């Protein structure tokens, strides 16, 4: 059973088509059953068998679960089994000894009794023989009758001495003839032939001397008695005619059997009691240990759930009490540390808030003064006028930097709160796009919106989503080199997505993750046209995380980039995938072009909606590491590596030609908004988004 996985099954069945569904050989089936199914949890082969297995396993599962989880049950069951074994062993030894003792005594008594009897029978025969020798004139017939009656009399006289303690039986010696009245006789209605075992008769025939054996006394039907165990001792004796016959003493063992069964019964009862009591004792003892352990487990769980004031009850000074004390000390220290950290965090937040206030008031004055000077710059000499301009510009930058820093520190302190309500993302996108129009006009870029035919509604914080999208769109326009920017909306399953695609410089390998780092610059050497703070995408990423959503980037050098925001449709739903593939359909790879933009041989690759491997993947992306925030949350993809969050950067070398391809899906171009023209300061959003 090495190839136990489901993938191996088709090959096997193909290779061995004769493998029957319902094979007759039950043994091999059970072998497979145990080997593959019950033990390893999966079975290959016929579906019927698998079904049967599942059917058998199902009722066992809770029991096995209980067994695995319950140490008390384990100990009690083990104790029961082991004590049962010990009791059984002891029982067999004791019973064997008692039986031997009982039988030894009985056998000795019986042997002496039988020896006496044999001697008496011999003596009587000799007496009669001497008598007839004196007479001398008796005929054979008469004597035959005499022997017959003599034997009857012998049997009754011998047995009468035992007063029921034994029976006497005579049987003819098989070597001699059966004539002459030396036939079967038995005292007390014993069936002579049935009561004496054949083997014993043969041994007595073949040798002189007494032999013994165990047997059962069988009574004649007239006696109305059940057969009973007995010890039989027999010997070949001569009758008065000097012919041999067999004389048996049968000693019933009823008394001994009764004693033995009494002992057996007593032992069984005692054993049962011992086993049950041992089980109960084990249960009680284990409970003494397990109860505090369980209590500790429960309290540890409550501690981890945040109820830090929980403590164990400690009584006595034993090991359990030590456990409790150590546990409580741990909880105490934990609580202390957490409290310290909380205080620290609160102080930090307070500090940030205070700094914010203290910084902002003078900044407001400076800002207003700068504006007044700026307004009046036409009256100044050129140097002073330029200085006034620089002052005003840099104050803007300083202000947005301060705002972004405060926003980031709010995220870091965990003070950012989501105010989610159902919003239509199309409206947000339209607002963002109309806000970015002035900048786009200056750059000669057209911003198109695709996929806004139907409402795209999600539970989200409109302010934050707008901030994220404004950031993405302004970035796309800025880095789009005057080419079009496409904003695509889609919803599918439990997720909605907005992707912002540009055809500008794109991203180099590895940059798709680094763009979200704080203060990261794509190209330090490149002149910055608009002042950004370098925190915009970091804030956008935090905003996406706050929603339980994803913000991911893809790009190829010279081929543009795509930033995709995926949000769950309802706030508490984990994301499983995004309706828009991270790598756009018109990427070079998807169009089957090689790095130089020339057609590649035959590999047509359709961009599919990436099914993000969910499961272990934390949707909220709990990692707060700003450097590689989304790599940690990414599971290894099987099909499409671009579906990987944070692995969007394709390793595509710079192309020889800057050829630009347009096969975007048709979309409505947003008409330039009248109002947008008045948004005079949209140019300074840059990479940054301004937190309020």
């Amino acid at each position, binding site marked *: 059973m090495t190839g136990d996985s489901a993938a191996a099954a088709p090959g096997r069945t193909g290779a061995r088509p004769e493998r029957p569904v319902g094979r007759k050989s039950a043994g091999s089936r059970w072998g497979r059953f145990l080997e593959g199914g019950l033990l390893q949890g999966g079975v290959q082969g016929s579906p019927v068998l698998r079904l049967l297995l599942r059917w058998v396993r199902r009722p066992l599962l809770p029991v096995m679960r209980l067994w695995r989880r319950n140490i008390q049950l384990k100990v009690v069951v083990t104790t029961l089994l082991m004590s049962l074994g010990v009791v059984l062993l002891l029982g067999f030894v004791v019973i064997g000894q008692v039986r031997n003792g009982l039988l030894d005594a009985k056998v000795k008594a019986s042997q002496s009794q039988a020896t006496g009897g044999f001697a008496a029978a011999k003596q009587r025969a000799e007496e009669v023989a001497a008598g007839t020798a004196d007479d001398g004139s008796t005929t054979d017939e008469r004597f035959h009758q005499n022997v017959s009656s003599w034997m009857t009399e012998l049997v009754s006289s011998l047995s009468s001495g035992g007063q029921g303690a034994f029976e006497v039986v005579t049987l003819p010696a098989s070597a001699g003839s059966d004539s002459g009245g030396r036939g079967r006789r038995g005292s007390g209605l014993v069936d002579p032939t049935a009561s004496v075992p054949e083997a014993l008769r043969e041994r007595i025939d073949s040798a002189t001397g007494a032999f013994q054996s165990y047997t059962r006394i069988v009574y004649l039907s007239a006696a109305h008695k059940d057969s009973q165990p007995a010890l039989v001792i027999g010997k070949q004796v001569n009758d008065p005619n000097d012919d041999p016959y067999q004389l048996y003493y049968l000693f019933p063992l009823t008394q001994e059997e009764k004693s033995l069964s009494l002992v057996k019964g007593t032992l069984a009862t005692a054993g049962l009691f011992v086993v049950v009591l041992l089980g109960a004792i084990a249960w009680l003892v284990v409970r003494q240990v397990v109860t505090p352990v369980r209590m500790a487990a429960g309290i540890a769980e409550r501690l981890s759930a945040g109820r830090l004031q929980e403590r164990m009850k400690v009584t006595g000074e034993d090991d359990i009490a030590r456990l409790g004390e150590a546990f409580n000390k741990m909880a105490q220290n934990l609580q202390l540390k957490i409290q310290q950290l909380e205080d620290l965090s609160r102080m930090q937040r307070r500090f940030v808030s205070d700094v*914010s*206030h203290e910084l902002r*008031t003078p900044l407001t*004055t400076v*800002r*207003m003064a700068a*504006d*007044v000077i700026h307004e009046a710059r036409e009256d100044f000499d050129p140097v002073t006028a330029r200085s006034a301009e620089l002052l005003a510009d840099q104050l803007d930058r300083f202000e947005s930097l301060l705002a972004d820093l405060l926003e980031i520190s709010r995220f870091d302190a965990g003070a950012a709160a989501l105010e989610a309500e159902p919003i239509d993302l199309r409206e947000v996108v339209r*607002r963002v796009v109309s806000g970015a129009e002035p900048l786009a006009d200056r750059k000669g870029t057209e911003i198109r919106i695709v996929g806004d035919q139907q409402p795209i509604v999600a539970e989200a914080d409109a302010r934050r989503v707008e901030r994220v999208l404004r950031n993405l769109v302004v970035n796309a326009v800025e880095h789009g080199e005057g080419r079009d920017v496409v904003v695509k909306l889609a919803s599918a399953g439990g997720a909605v997505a907005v992707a912002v695609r540009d055809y500008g410089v794109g991203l180099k390998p590895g940059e798709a993750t680094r763009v979200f780092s704080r203060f990261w610059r794509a190209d330090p050497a490149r002149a910055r046209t608009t002042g950004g703070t370098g925190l915009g995408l970091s804030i956008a990423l935090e905003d996406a995380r706050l929603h339980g959503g994803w913000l991911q980037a893809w790009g190829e050098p010279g081929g543009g980039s795509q930033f995709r925001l995926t949000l769950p449709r309802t706030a508490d739903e984990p994301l499983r995938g995004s309706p828009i593939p991270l790598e756009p359909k018109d990427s070079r790879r998807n169009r089957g072009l090689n790095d130089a933009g020339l057609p590649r041989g035959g590999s047509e690759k359709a961009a599919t909606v990436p099914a993000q491997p969910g499961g272990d993947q934390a949707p909220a992306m709990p990692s707060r590491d700003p450097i590689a925030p989304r790599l940690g949350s990414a599971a290894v993809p099987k099909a499409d590596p671009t579906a990987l969050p944070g692995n969007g950067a394709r390793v595509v070398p710079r192309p020889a030609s800057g050829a630009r391809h347009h096969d975007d899906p048709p979309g409505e171009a947003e008409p330039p908004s009248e109002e947008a023209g008045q948004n005079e300061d949209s140019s300074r959003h840059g990479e940054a988004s301004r937190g309020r």
Partner: protein
Amino acid sequence: MMSFMKGRVLVVDDDTALAEMLGIVLRGEGFEPSFVADGDKALAAFRETKPDLVLLDLMLPGRDGIEVCRLIRAESGVPIVMLTAKSDTVDVVVGLESGADDYIVKPFKPKELVARIRARLRRSEEPAPEQLAIGDLVIDVAGHSVKRDGQSIALTPLEFDLLVALARKPWQVFTREVLLEQVWGYRHAADTRLVNVHVQRLRSKVEKDPERPEIVVTVRGVGYKAGPS
């Protein structure tokens, strides 16, 4: 436009530099600023100067801005614009609930400030005599009064504007953004909490049962509309 160029503005701020700068900017725009630096003296100064608008810093020595706001609102419907360094939810919402009409976050630009002040001072020039009905209320737009069964209800100018905006188009559902533009004069998306808080304040004055509003009805997921007349 000259009609509201003249406006008395009371600046309540303890930062003398900022107050002076505000004075420069306001005078430059044709307003008449007066100043008070202490929260305890703010109410007396308000009564004395009878301003058309109050600029109020939230952090003040003595009485804090929230308290001053509440006191002024208790005796006047004059527009109050808060100056705040903290845009955190609680501060702003508390300020709005205590009666401020609008707020502006430091650091702000002079133009921004002046636009906010003007939006608050703007009254529709010579309003045409107009009677509106919303629910069982009768609104006299020119006379700036709201009456239920002949009993007039005192509203601040902002609350009045909000009610009139809703009553003029009773068939229309107003999103918060549209209301922000029409009533507050924000051209671009602003804080929708402004709308939420003031709708609550308005309801507490005009609704018979603010828990079950009939005048200003919430349309879930969209915004607000006027109740049926």
